């Protein structure tokens, strides 16, 4: 097996071997899916229309934003990256492989949810399954890039919690998962447009369900794809091998550039 394959295999297995990651990759999304399927569909019967995409995107959000950054921070603080450097592991592998394995876990969980939401809770299936999975995959890369970037710029585990909650909480409240974007007050829409989940929901609603969207679905899909590239590019640029070694190529504040594709798509979409 190649070095890349061996590395990928190890990190993927860690996602199952580590109880925290197992919880965040599978148990938490499945538990939340069941709870929402039982409770939310009773309270708000209209929720079954978005149950499939909302819960699948939630699984992606949990793995990539809540699960991915912390191990990166922990490993850097524990000197793991220093070891990796002296053993010849390239920086790009450290940045990309955890993201790829997390995306893999997230897609497994999202697929299980998408396929079982209909039979279990009456969730409305998409008109186009390929479009659904395409958008979910692009979303997973966009969120994976964002999670990696958070892990790269966070100075400590405490800071990681702050950054992840800054993405996760608004995504749950105004990111289209619980309340459709079309029902949000107009003043909130620009803020919602900065969140990948908003664009993911819009792209799925438009491309997989053929529904009316707040922004153009292709525009949203494009924002996610460009957002993924920008996030991984910034993460590679800002990557630091060593918590003790202060040298870094750019200021961590550059990470805010990751929002530019979503901002542009929102501005263009709202015109």
């Amino acid at each position, binding site marked *: 097996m190649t070095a890349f394959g*061996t590395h990928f295999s190890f990190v993927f297995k860690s996602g199952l*071997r580590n109880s925290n990651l197992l919880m965040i990759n599978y148990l938490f999304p499945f538990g939340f899916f069941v709870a929402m399927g039982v409770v939310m569909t009773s309270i708000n019967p209209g929720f079954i229309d978005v149950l499939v995409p909302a819960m699948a995107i939630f699984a992606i959000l949990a793995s990539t934003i809540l699960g991915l950054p912390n191990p990166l921070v922990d490993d850097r603080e524990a000197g793991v990256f220093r070891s990796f450097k002296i053993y010849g592991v390239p920086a790009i592998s450290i940045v990309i492989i955890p993201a790829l394995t997390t995306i893999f876990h997230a897609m497994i969980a999202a697929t299980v949810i998408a396929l079982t939401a209909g039979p279990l809770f009456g969730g409305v299936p998409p008109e186009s399954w390929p479009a659904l999975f395409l958008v979910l995959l692009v979303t997973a890369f966009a969120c994976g890039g964002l999670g990696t970037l958070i892990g790269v710029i966070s100075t400590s585990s405490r800071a990681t919690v702050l950054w992840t909650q800054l993405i996760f909480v608004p995504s749950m409240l105004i990111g289209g998962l619980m309340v459709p974007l079309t029902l949000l007050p107009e003043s909130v829409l620009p803020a919602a447009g900065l969140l990948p989940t908003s664009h993911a929901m819009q792209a799925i609603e438009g491309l997989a369900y053929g529904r009316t969207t707040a922004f153009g679905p292709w525009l949203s899909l494009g924002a996610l794809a460009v957002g993924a590239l920008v996030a991984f590019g910034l993460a590679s640029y800002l990557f630091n091998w060593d918590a003790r070694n202060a040298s870094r190529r750019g200021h961590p504040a550059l990470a805010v550039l990751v929002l530019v594709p979503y901002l542009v798509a929102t501005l263009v979409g709202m015109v």
Partner: protein
Amino acid sequence: MVEDSAVRVAGLRKRYGDVIAVDGVSFEARRGEIFGLLGPNGAGKTTTFECLEGIRRPDEGGLEVLGIDPHKDPRALGKVMGIQLQTSGLPADMLVDEAMRFFSAYHGVAPRYEVLDRMGLGEKRGATYRSLSTGQQRRLTLALAVAHEPEVVVLDEPTAGLDVATRAELHAMMAELRGRGTTILLATHDMAEAEKLADRVAILLRGRIVALDTPRKLTAAGPDLTKITVRTDSERDLTQTSLPHVVRSLRADSYSVFFSEDAGATVVALIRSIESAGEKLADLRVERPTLEERFLELTQDGGLP
């Protein structure tokens, strides 16, 4: 430049803000040599090694490992150099076996599980890094450092936290590596270890080399005093006795200790003095100064010109 030089450090300087960590360090390590770097904490040993390993960029100075510049060609360096860092770690969930597979894959060599057996980790191959004791974790990182059979091995405090048996096994392994022509750079606090293993030793103090030679020559270079330790059956304090060539004396437990410039004359006079007092000699030891004593002498005096 030494003809068979494996590692060359010339005028290395590194500062962290206002602190000068390494101040013009120069040395060469020959092929197949164990080169010891000794010094108190903060002397600059780890910084010197980290510059050589390509982890830190020096402010000034030339570095070469088998003709490779560590900062210009880190990939080539990784193939010829094995490193055990003083502070490093592996992913907590990585299995011992997996670590060997993982790093061998990055070095492009087949995993050498027998090295794990040799380091006493044979029964721990299925254990996670997190579950290993500190000593076992150090043994694992050491096994990984030598698994790709590098020509130069850098060991930063390799025996810290190891038990006696593993330490002996490690010493045997280092001697074996040297026998195969591997150059070993060894930073250690264990003077006995340096004296036993190192072909040459550099003593580093406040970022500068204050002494560099073979352990034997280094110890001989100090004040030529021999330590004479004696105990009589009555355990009487003999330090007040007037003896020839004694520079200083002290009392340690039930022993009287003398430092003499002429051990033969001092011992003869000492035995006569004991016999004339009607006592019997219970224990007598005559020792040459050790590297540790020379090290303490250099570091306590400040060592710098």
